[in-house]
Protein backbone atom coordinates (compact mmCIF):
# COMPACT_ATOMS: atom_id res chain seq x y z
CA UNK A 1 0.00 0.00 0.00
CA UNK A 2 2.58 2.53 1.11
CA UNK A 3 4.96 1.31 -1.56
CA UNK A 4 2.39 1.78 -4.31
CA UNK A 5 1.51 5.20 -2.93
CA UNK A 6 5.20 6.15 -3.05
CA UNK A 7 5.38 4.82 -6.60
CA UNK A 8 2.37 6.91 -7.58
CA UNK A 9 3.98 10.03 -6.11
CA UNK A 10 7.16 9.38 -8.07
CA UNK A 11 5.16 8.84 -11.25
CA UNK A 12 3.09 11.97 -10.69
CA UNK A 13 6.22 14.02 -10.24
CA UNK A 14 7.88 12.45 -13.29
CA UNK A 15 4.79 13.20 -15.38
CA UNK A 16 4.77 16.81 -14.23
CA UNK A 17 8.42 17.27 -15.16
CA UNK A 18 7.98 15.44 -18.45
CA UNK A 19 5.03 17.59 -19.44
CA UNK A 20 6.90 20.80 -18.57
CA UNK A 21 9.78 19.63 -20.73
CA UNK A 22 7.25 18.76 -23.45
CA UNK A 23 5.83 22.28 -23.36
CA UNK A 24 9.35 23.67 -23.64
CA UNK A 25 10.18 21.30 -26.51
CA UNK A 26 7.00 22.10 -28.41
CA UNK A 27 7.06 25.88 -27.99
CA UNK A 28 10.76 26.81 -27.69
CA UNK A 29 13.05 24.00 -28.79
CA UNK A 30 11.17 23.21 -31.99
CA UNK A 31 11.89 25.75 -34.73
CA UNK A 32 9.18 27.14 -36.98
CA UNK A 33 8.15 24.82 -39.76
CA UNK A 34 9.68 26.63 -42.71
CA UNK A 35 8.07 24.33 -45.26
CA UNK A 36 4.53 25.49 -44.44
CA UNK A 37 2.86 28.80 -45.03
CA UNK A 38 3.92 31.41 -42.39
CA UNK A 39 0.31 32.00 -41.40
CA UNK A 40 -0.10 28.41 -40.17
CA UNK A 41 3.34 27.99 -38.59
CA UNK A 42 2.06 28.55 -35.03
CA UNK A 43 -0.76 26.08 -35.65
CA UNK A 44 1.73 23.51 -36.90
CA UNK A 45 3.04 23.20 -33.35
CA UNK A 46 -0.16 21.35 -32.49
CA UNK A 47 1.61 18.33 -33.95
CA UNK A 48 3.55 18.08 -30.67
CA UNK A 49 0.28 17.68 -28.82
CA UNK A 50 -1.86 15.98 -31.42
CA UNK A 51 0.30 13.03 -32.49
CA UNK A 52 1.36 12.08 -28.93
CA UNK A 53 -2.31 12.17 -27.87
CA UNK A 54 -3.23 9.88 -30.75
CA UNK A 55 -0.40 7.46 -29.95
CA UNK A 56 -1.31 7.43 -26.26
CA UNK A 57 -4.92 6.67 -27.10
CA UNK A 58 -3.89 3.72 -29.27
CA UNK A 59 -1.60 2.49 -26.50
CA UNK A 60 -4.50 2.85 -24.05
CA UNK A 61 -6.89 0.82 -26.20
CA UNK A 62 -4.24 -1.82 -26.71
CA UNK A 63 -3.74 -2.10 -22.94
CA UNK A 64 -7.52 -2.38 -22.55
CA UNK A 65 -7.60 -5.14 -25.18
CA UNK A 66 -4.88 -7.17 -23.46
CA UNK A 67 -6.49 -6.60 -20.06
CA UNK A 68 -9.85 -7.79 -21.44
CA UNK A 69 -8.27 -11.03 -22.71
CA UNK A 70 -6.49 -11.53 -19.39
CA UNK A 71 -9.74 -10.97 -17.53
CA UNK A 72 -11.53 -13.69 -19.48
CA UNK A 73 -8.62 -16.09 -18.88
CA UNK A 74 -8.02 -15.38 -15.19
CA UNK A 75 -11.36 -13.87 -14.05
CA UNK A 76 -9.29 -11.69 -11.73
CA UNK A 77 -10.91 -8.35 -10.90
CA UNK A 78 -7.54 -6.67 -11.41
CA UNK A 79 -7.81 -6.96 -15.19
CA UNK A 80 -11.30 -5.53 -15.22
CA UNK A 81 -10.01 -2.49 -13.34
CA UNK A 82 -7.14 -2.24 -15.82
CA UNK A 83 -9.42 -2.55 -18.84
CA UNK A 84 -11.81 0.11 -17.58
CA UNK A 85 -9.02 2.48 -16.61
CA UNK A 86 -7.25 2.12 -19.96
CA UNK A 87 -10.48 2.49 -21.96
CA UNK A 88 -11.35 5.69 -20.10
CA UNK A 89 -7.92 7.14 -20.80
CA UNK A 90 -8.20 6.01 -24.41
CA UNK A 91 -11.39 8.06 -24.75
CA UNK A 92 -9.76 11.08 -23.11
CA UNK A 93 -6.72 10.96 -25.41
CA UNK A 94 -8.91 10.32 -28.45
CA UNK A 95 -10.98 13.40 -27.70
CA UNK A 96 -7.75 15.36 -27.21
CA UNK A 97 -6.43 14.12 -30.55
CA UNK A 98 -9.67 14.88 -32.41
CA UNK A 99 -10.04 18.38 -30.94
CA UNK A 100 -6.38 19.32 -31.47
CA UNK A 101 -6.56 17.91 -35.00
CA UNK A 102 -9.63 19.98 -35.76
CA UNK A 103 -7.99 23.14 -34.44
CA UNK A 104 -5.04 22.52 -36.71
CA UNK A 105 -7.18 21.54 -39.68
CA UNK A 106 -9.06 24.85 -39.66
CA UNK A 107 -6.03 27.00 -40.63
CA UNK A 108 -4.29 24.24 -42.61
CA UNK A 109 -7.16 22.71 -44.58
CA UNK A 110 -9.61 25.55 -44.04
CA UNK A 111 -12.13 23.20 -42.45
CA UNK A 112 -12.57 21.68 -39.02
CA UNK A 113 -13.59 18.38 -40.46
CA UNK A 114 -12.83 16.21 -43.49
CA UNK A 115 -13.72 12.58 -44.10
CA UNK A 116 -10.07 11.62 -44.04
CA UNK A 117 -9.53 7.93 -43.07
CA UNK A 118 -7.73 8.78 -39.87
CA UNK A 119 -10.33 11.28 -38.71
CA UNK A 120 -13.23 9.01 -39.54
CA UNK A 121 -11.62 5.96 -37.96
CA UNK A 122 -10.90 7.93 -34.82
CA UNK A 123 -14.49 9.03 -34.54
CA UNK A 124 -15.69 5.44 -34.93
CA UNK A 125 -13.18 4.39 -32.27
CA UNK A 126 -14.62 7.04 -29.97
CA UNK A 127 -18.12 5.68 -30.59
CA UNK A 128 -16.92 2.10 -29.97
CA UNK A 129 -15.57 2.96 -26.55
CA UNK A 130 -18.53 5.14 -25.64
CA UNK A 131 -20.63 2.05 -26.41
CA UNK A 132 -18.24 0.08 -24.20
CA UNK A 133 -19.06 2.35 -21.27
CA UNK A 134 -22.78 2.33 -22.04
CA UNK A 135 -22.61 -1.46 -21.84
CA UNK A 136 -20.80 -1.27 -18.51
CA UNK A 137 -23.29 1.27 -17.22
CA UNK A 138 -26.25 -0.94 -18.07
CA UNK A 139 -25.14 -3.98 -16.05
CA UNK A 140 -25.35 -3.89 -12.26
CA UNK A 141 -23.78 -7.15 -11.23
CA UNK A 142 -19.97 -6.65 -11.13
CA UNK A 143 -18.85 -10.08 -12.35
CA UNK A 144 -21.27 -10.08 -15.26
CA UNK A 145 -20.39 -6.49 -16.11
CA UNK A 146 -16.70 -7.34 -16.20
CA UNK A 147 -17.30 -10.37 -18.42
CA UNK A 148 -19.56 -8.63 -20.92
CA UNK A 149 -17.28 -5.60 -21.07
CA UNK A 150 -14.24 -7.82 -21.71
CA UNK A 151 -15.96 -9.57 -24.62
CA UNK A 152 -17.03 -6.26 -26.12
CA UNK A 153 -13.55 -4.80 -25.57
CA UNK A 154 -12.05 -7.61 -27.64
CA UNK A 155 -14.56 -7.23 -30.49
CA UNK A 156 -14.18 -3.46 -30.47
CA UNK A 157 -10.39 -3.41 -30.60
CA UNK A 158 -10.23 -5.95 -33.44
CA UNK A 159 -12.58 -3.85 -35.56
CA UNK A 160 -10.32 -0.80 -35.53
CA UNK A 161 -7.80 -1.93 -38.21
CA UNK A 162 -10.66 -3.25 -40.37
CA UNK A 163 -12.45 0.08 -40.15
CA UNK A 164 -9.27 1.95 -40.98
CA UNK A 165 -8.55 -0.28 -44.00
CA UNK A 166 -12.07 0.00 -45.37
CA UNK A 167 -12.18 3.77 -45.02
CA UNK A 168 -8.82 4.09 -46.74
CA UNK A 169 -9.91 1.87 -49.62
CA UNK A 170 -13.17 3.78 -49.84
CA UNK A 171 -11.29 7.03 -50.26
CA UNK A 172 -8.65 5.79 -52.68
CA UNK A 173 -11.41 5.11 -55.17
CA UNK A 174 -12.65 8.66 -54.66
CA UNK A 175 -9.43 10.69 -54.76
CA UNK A 176 -10.47 13.37 -52.30
CA UNK A 177 -7.85 12.71 -49.65
CA UNK A 178 -6.59 15.95 -48.20
CA UNK A 179 -3.80 14.57 -46.10
CA UNK A 180 -0.99 15.86 -48.27
CA UNK A 181 -0.20 18.81 -45.95
CA UNK A 182 -0.07 16.43 -43.02
CA UNK A 183 2.40 14.23 -44.86
CA UNK A 184 4.74 17.11 -45.56
CA UNK A 185 4.60 17.96 -41.88
CA UNK A 186 5.31 14.45 -40.82
CA UNK A 187 8.13 13.64 -43.11
CA UNK A 188 9.55 17.13 -43.34
CA UNK A 189 10.53 17.43 -39.70
CA UNK A 190 13.96 19.03 -39.27
CA UNK A 191 16.45 17.69 -36.65
CA UNK A 192 15.30 19.92 -33.81
CA UNK A 193 11.68 19.40 -34.73
CA UNK A 194 12.28 15.67 -34.65
CA UNK A 195 13.84 16.00 -31.18
CA UNK A 196 10.87 17.98 -29.93
CA UNK A 197 8.55 15.45 -31.53
CA UNK A 198 10.23 12.52 -29.80
CA UNK A 199 10.43 14.37 -26.46
CA UNK A 200 6.72 15.18 -26.50
CA UNK A 201 5.86 11.60 -27.44
CA UNK A 202 7.89 10.20 -24.55
CA UNK A 203 6.38 12.79 -22.21
CA UNK A 204 2.87 11.76 -23.23
CA UNK A 205 3.66 8.09 -22.68
CA UNK A 206 4.89 8.94 -19.17
CA UNK A 207 1.71 10.97 -18.67
CA UNK A 208 -0.37 8.04 -19.87
CA UNK A 209 1.35 5.56 -17.56
CA UNK A 210 0.90 7.96 -14.64
CA UNK A 211 -2.78 8.54 -15.32
CA UNK A 212 -3.29 4.81 -15.79
CA UNK A 213 -1.59 4.02 -12.48
CA UNK A 214 -3.70 6.65 -10.72
CA UNK A 215 -6.90 5.42 -12.32
CA UNK A 216 -6.11 1.83 -11.39
CA UNK A 217 -5.44 2.78 -7.79
CA UNK A 218 -8.74 4.68 -7.82
CA UNK A 219 -10.39 1.55 -9.22
CA UNK A 220 -9.10 -0.48 -6.30
CA UNK A 221 -10.38 2.18 -3.89
CA UNK A 222 -13.83 1.92 -5.52
CA UNK A 223 -13.63 -1.84 -5.20
CA UNK A 224 -12.85 -1.57 -1.47
CA UNK A 225 -15.62 0.95 -0.97
CA UNK A 226 -18.14 -1.38 -2.63
CA UNK A 227 -17.01 -4.20 -0.37
CA UNK A 228 -17.41 -1.99 2.69
CA UNK A 229 -20.87 -0.85 1.60
CA UNK A 230 -21.79 -4.48 1.14
CA UNK A 231 -20.68 -5.29 4.67
CA UNK A 232 -22.59 -2.37 6.15
CA UNK A 233 -25.67 -3.10 4.04
CA UNK A 234 -25.40 0.44 2.81
Amino acid at each position, binding site marked *: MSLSRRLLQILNFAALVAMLIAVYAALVLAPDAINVDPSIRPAQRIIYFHVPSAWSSMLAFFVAFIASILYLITKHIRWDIWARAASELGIAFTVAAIISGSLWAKPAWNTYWTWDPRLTTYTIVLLLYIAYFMLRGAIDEPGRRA*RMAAVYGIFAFLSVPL*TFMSIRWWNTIHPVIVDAPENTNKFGLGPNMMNAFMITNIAFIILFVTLLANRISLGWAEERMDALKERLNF
Partner: protein
Amino acid sequence: MKRYLQVVWAVLWKDLRIELRTKDIFTSMAVFAVLALMIFNFAFELRVPDKTMVIPGVLWVTITFSGVLGLGRAFISEKDRGSMAGLLLAPVDRSAIYFGKMLASLIFILVMEVFLLPLMVIFFNANFISLPLLLVLFLGTLGFAAVGTVFSGLAVNTRTREVLLPVLLFPVMLPVLMAGIRATIGFMEGDALADMMKWVNLLIFFDLLYLVVAYMTFDFVVEE
Protein backbone atom coordinates in the same frame (compact mmCIF):
# COMPACT_ATOMS: atom_id res chain seq x y z
CA MET B 1 -18.12 -33.68 -34.72
CA LYS B 2 -21.37 -35.35 -35.74
CA ARG B 3 -22.75 -34.83 -32.26
CA TYR B 4 -21.70 -31.17 -32.37
CA LEU B 5 -23.54 -30.65 -35.64
CA GLN B 6 -26.59 -32.37 -34.20
CA VAL B 7 -26.65 -29.85 -31.36
CA VAL B 8 -26.25 -26.95 -33.79
CA TRP B 9 -29.09 -28.35 -35.85
CA ALA B 10 -31.29 -28.88 -32.78
CA VAL B 11 -30.92 -25.27 -31.66
CA LEU B 12 -31.39 -23.99 -35.20
CA TRP B 13 -34.47 -26.13 -35.81
CA LYS B 14 -35.97 -25.09 -32.46
CA ASP B 15 -35.62 -21.40 -33.38
CA LEU B 16 -36.94 -21.96 -36.89
CA ARG B 17 -39.95 -23.85 -35.57
CA ILE B 18 -40.78 -21.13 -33.06
CA GLU B 19 -40.51 -18.59 -35.86
CA LEU B 20 -42.64 -20.67 -38.24
CA ARG B 21 -45.38 -20.78 -35.61
CA THR B 22 -45.28 -17.20 -34.34
CA LYS B 23 -43.74 -15.33 -37.30
CA ASP B 24 -42.83 -12.61 -34.80
CA ILE B 25 -39.37 -11.84 -36.08
CA PHE B 26 -40.01 -12.08 -39.78
CA THR B 27 -43.13 -9.92 -39.63
CA SER B 28 -41.46 -7.12 -37.71
CA MET B 29 -38.35 -7.21 -39.91
CA ALA B 30 -40.32 -7.26 -43.15
CA VAL B 31 -42.76 -4.52 -42.15
CA PHE B 32 -39.89 -2.40 -40.86
CA ALA B 33 -38.00 -2.91 -44.14
CA VAL B 34 -40.99 -1.70 -46.18
CA LEU B 35 -41.37 1.29 -43.87
CA ALA B 36 -37.70 2.10 -44.26
CA LEU B 37 -38.05 1.98 -48.06
CA MET B 38 -40.98 4.39 -47.85
CA ILE B 39 -39.06 6.76 -45.61
CA PHE B 40 -35.98 6.66 -47.81
CA ASN B 41 -38.16 7.31 -50.84
CA PHE B 42 -39.42 10.56 -49.37
CA ALA B 43 -36.05 11.44 -47.88
CA PHE B 44 -34.30 11.36 -51.26
CA GLU B 45 -37.15 12.29 -53.59
CA LEU B 46 -36.45 15.97 -53.92
CA ARG B 47 -32.68 16.16 -53.88
CA VAL B 48 -31.25 13.24 -55.79
CA PRO B 49 -31.16 13.54 -59.60
CA ASP B 50 -31.68 9.82 -60.16
CA LYS B 51 -33.26 7.65 -57.52
CA THR B 52 -31.31 4.55 -58.58
CA MET B 53 -28.17 6.32 -57.32
CA VAL B 54 -29.21 5.78 -53.72
CA ILE B 55 -30.03 2.06 -54.11
CA PRO B 56 -26.74 0.77 -52.58
CA GLY B 57 -27.08 2.94 -49.50
CA VAL B 58 -30.79 2.27 -49.06
CA LEU B 59 -30.25 -1.48 -49.48
CA TRP B 60 -27.55 -1.80 -46.85
CA VAL B 61 -28.99 0.63 -44.35
CA THR B 62 -32.38 -1.06 -44.57
CA ILE B 63 -30.80 -4.49 -44.06
CA THR B 64 -28.77 -3.24 -41.11
CA PHE B 65 -31.65 -1.49 -39.37
CA SER B 66 -34.17 -4.19 -40.00
CA GLY B 67 -31.66 -6.97 -39.26
CA VAL B 68 -30.89 -5.54 -35.85
CA LEU B 69 -34.57 -5.96 -34.96
CA GLY B 70 -34.33 -9.68 -35.64
CA LEU B 71 -30.99 -10.08 -33.87
CA GLY B 72 -32.37 -8.43 -30.76
CA ARG B 73 -34.92 -11.22 -30.40
CA ALA B 74 -32.34 -14.04 -30.53
CA PHE B 75 -31.80 -14.13 -26.78
CA ILE B 76 -34.49 -11.85 -25.42
CA SER B 77 -37.22 -14.37 -26.23
CA GLU B 78 -35.23 -17.11 -24.50
CA LYS B 79 -34.72 -14.94 -21.45
CA ASP B 80 -38.36 -13.86 -21.26
CA ARG B 81 -39.70 -17.38 -21.56
CA GLY B 82 -37.16 -18.57 -19.01
CA SER B 83 -35.89 -21.13 -21.47
CA MET B 84 -32.36 -19.71 -21.44
CA ALA B 85 -31.47 -21.65 -18.29
CA GLY B 86 -32.73 -24.85 -19.87
CA LEU B 87 -30.70 -24.23 -22.97
CA LEU B 88 -27.57 -23.63 -20.92
CA LEU B 89 -28.15 -26.65 -18.69
CA ALA B 90 -28.00 -28.93 -21.71
CA PRO B 91 -24.77 -30.95 -21.51
CA VAL B 92 -23.41 -29.61 -24.79
CA ASP B 93 -20.66 -27.35 -26.00
CA ARG B 94 -21.94 -23.78 -25.64
CA SER B 95 -20.36 -22.74 -28.91
CA ALA B 96 -22.78 -25.18 -30.60
CA ILE B 97 -25.62 -23.12 -29.11
CA TYR B 98 -23.96 -20.04 -30.57
CA PHE B 99 -23.74 -21.53 -34.05
CA GLY B 100 -27.35 -22.70 -33.89
CA LYS B 101 -28.54 -19.27 -32.84
CA MET B 102 -26.27 -17.56 -35.34
CA LEU B 103 -27.55 -19.69 -38.23
CA ALA B 104 -31.15 -19.01 -37.19
CA SER B 105 -30.53 -15.26 -37.21
CA LEU B 106 -28.68 -15.59 -40.52
CA ILE B 107 -31.65 -17.39 -42.06
CA PHE B 108 -34.16 -14.84 -40.72
CA ILE B 109 -32.18 -11.95 -42.18
CA LEU B 110 -31.62 -13.76 -45.49
CA VAL B 111 -35.35 -14.44 -45.79
CA MET B 112 -36.01 -10.75 -45.10
CA GLU B 113 -33.54 -9.90 -47.88
CA VAL B 114 -35.29 -12.25 -50.29
CA PHE B 115 -38.46 -10.31 -49.53
CA LEU B 116 -36.74 -6.90 -49.70
CA LEU B 117 -34.82 -7.25 -52.98
CA PRO B 118 -37.77 -7.71 -55.40
CA LEU B 119 -39.58 -4.96 -53.56
CA MET B 120 -36.68 -2.60 -54.17
CA VAL B 121 -36.54 -3.59 -57.82
CA ILE B 122 -40.20 -2.58 -58.11
CA PHE B 123 -40.02 0.61 -56.04
CA PHE B 124 -36.85 1.92 -57.66
CA ASN B 125 -37.80 0.55 -61.06
CA ALA B 126 -34.28 -0.73 -61.62
CA ASN B 127 -33.02 -4.28 -61.86
CA PHE B 128 -29.83 -4.10 -59.86
CA ILE B 129 -29.77 -7.72 -58.71
CA SER B 130 -26.87 -9.83 -59.92
CA LEU B 131 -25.14 -13.02 -58.84
CA PRO B 132 -22.03 -11.25 -57.43
CA LEU B 133 -24.31 -8.91 -55.51
CA LEU B 134 -26.04 -11.90 -53.92
CA LEU B 135 -22.64 -13.27 -52.91
CA VAL B 136 -21.66 -9.97 -51.28
CA LEU B 137 -25.05 -9.79 -49.57
CA PHE B 138 -24.57 -13.27 -48.18
CA LEU B 139 -21.05 -12.53 -46.90
CA GLY B 140 -22.17 -9.26 -45.34
CA THR B 141 -25.17 -10.87 -43.70
CA LEU B 142 -23.02 -13.68 -42.34
CA GLY B 143 -20.70 -11.16 -40.66
CA PHE B 144 -23.71 -9.27 -39.38
CA ALA B 145 -25.23 -12.41 -37.85
CA ALA B 146 -21.85 -13.62 -36.49
CA VAL B 147 -21.20 -10.42 -34.51
CA GLY B 148 -24.86 -9.63 -33.90
CA THR B 149 -25.62 -12.93 -32.17
CA VAL B 150 -22.82 -12.38 -29.64
CA PHE B 151 -23.85 -8.78 -29.05
CA SER B 152 -27.46 -9.83 -28.69
CA GLY B 153 -26.24 -12.11 -25.90
CA LEU B 154 -24.39 -9.15 -24.36
CA ALA B 155 -27.36 -6.82 -24.65
CA VAL B 156 -29.82 -9.25 -23.06
CA ASN B 157 -27.74 -9.03 -19.87
CA THR B 158 -28.22 -5.28 -19.61
CA ARG B 159 -30.99 -3.12 -18.25
CA THR B 160 -31.63 -1.41 -21.56
CA ARG B 161 -31.53 -4.62 -23.66
CA GLU B 162 -32.48 -4.09 -27.30
CA VAL B 163 -31.97 -0.35 -27.04
CA LEU B 164 -28.27 -0.95 -26.51
CA LEU B 165 -27.82 -3.49 -29.31
CA PRO B 166 -27.52 -1.05 -32.26
CA VAL B 167 -25.15 1.17 -30.27
CA LEU B 168 -22.90 -1.82 -29.65
CA LEU B 169 -23.28 -3.33 -33.10
CA PHE B 170 -23.13 -0.52 -35.65
CA PRO B 171 -19.61 0.82 -34.99
CA VAL B 172 -18.21 -2.71 -35.29
CA MET B 173 -20.25 -3.38 -38.44
CA LEU B 174 -18.98 -0.33 -40.30
CA PRO B 175 -16.45 -2.24 -42.47
CA VAL B 176 -19.19 -4.64 -43.60
CA LEU B 177 -21.49 -1.77 -44.45
CA MET B 178 -18.78 0.04 -46.40
CA ALA B 179 -17.68 -3.08 -48.27
CA GLY B 180 -21.30 -3.92 -49.09
CA ILE B 181 -22.19 -0.46 -50.32
CA ARG B 182 -19.00 -0.07 -52.35
CA ALA B 183 -19.38 -3.49 -53.97
CA THR B 184 -23.05 -2.83 -54.75
CA ILE B 185 -22.12 0.45 -56.45
CA GLY B 186 -19.47 -1.40 -58.44
CA PHE B 187 -21.82 -4.15 -59.59
CA MET B 188 -24.49 -1.63 -60.54
CA GLU B 189 -21.95 0.21 -62.67
CA GLY B 190 -21.12 -3.06 -64.40
CA ASP B 191 -17.89 -3.98 -62.65
CA ALA B 192 -17.06 -7.68 -62.61
CA LEU B 193 -16.62 -9.62 -59.39
CA ALA B 194 -12.85 -9.60 -59.98
CA ASP B 195 -12.73 -5.78 -59.68
CA MET B 196 -14.41 -5.97 -56.30
CA MET B 197 -12.27 -8.77 -54.86
CA LYS B 198 -10.70 -6.33 -52.39
CA TRP B 199 -14.07 -5.79 -50.74
CA VAL B 200 -15.11 -9.43 -51.02
CA ASN B 201 -11.85 -10.44 -49.32
CA LEU B 202 -12.43 -7.88 -46.60
CA LEU B 203 -15.87 -9.40 -45.98
CA ILE B 204 -14.48 -12.95 -45.92
CA PHE B 205 -11.75 -11.87 -43.51
CA PHE B 206 -14.27 -10.07 -41.30
CA ASP B 207 -16.57 -13.13 -41.24
CA LEU B 208 -13.79 -15.59 -40.41
CA LEU B 209 -12.20 -13.35 -37.78
CA TYR B 210 -15.42 -12.72 -35.91
CA LEU B 211 -16.71 -16.28 -36.19
CA VAL B 212 -13.49 -17.45 -34.53
CA VAL B 213 -13.60 -14.72 -31.86
CA ALA B 214 -17.28 -15.45 -31.21
CA TYR B 215 -16.50 -19.17 -30.94
CA MET B 216 -13.85 -18.37 -28.33
CA THR B 217 -15.80 -15.81 -26.29
CA PHE B 218 -19.43 -16.99 -26.42
CA ASP B 219 -18.99 -19.14 -23.30
CA PHE B 220 -18.34 -16.00 -21.26
CA VAL B 221 -21.39 -14.24 -22.65
CA VAL B 222 -23.94 -16.83 -21.53
CA GLU B 223 -22.15 -17.92 -18.35
CA GLU B 224 -24.33 -17.44 -15.28
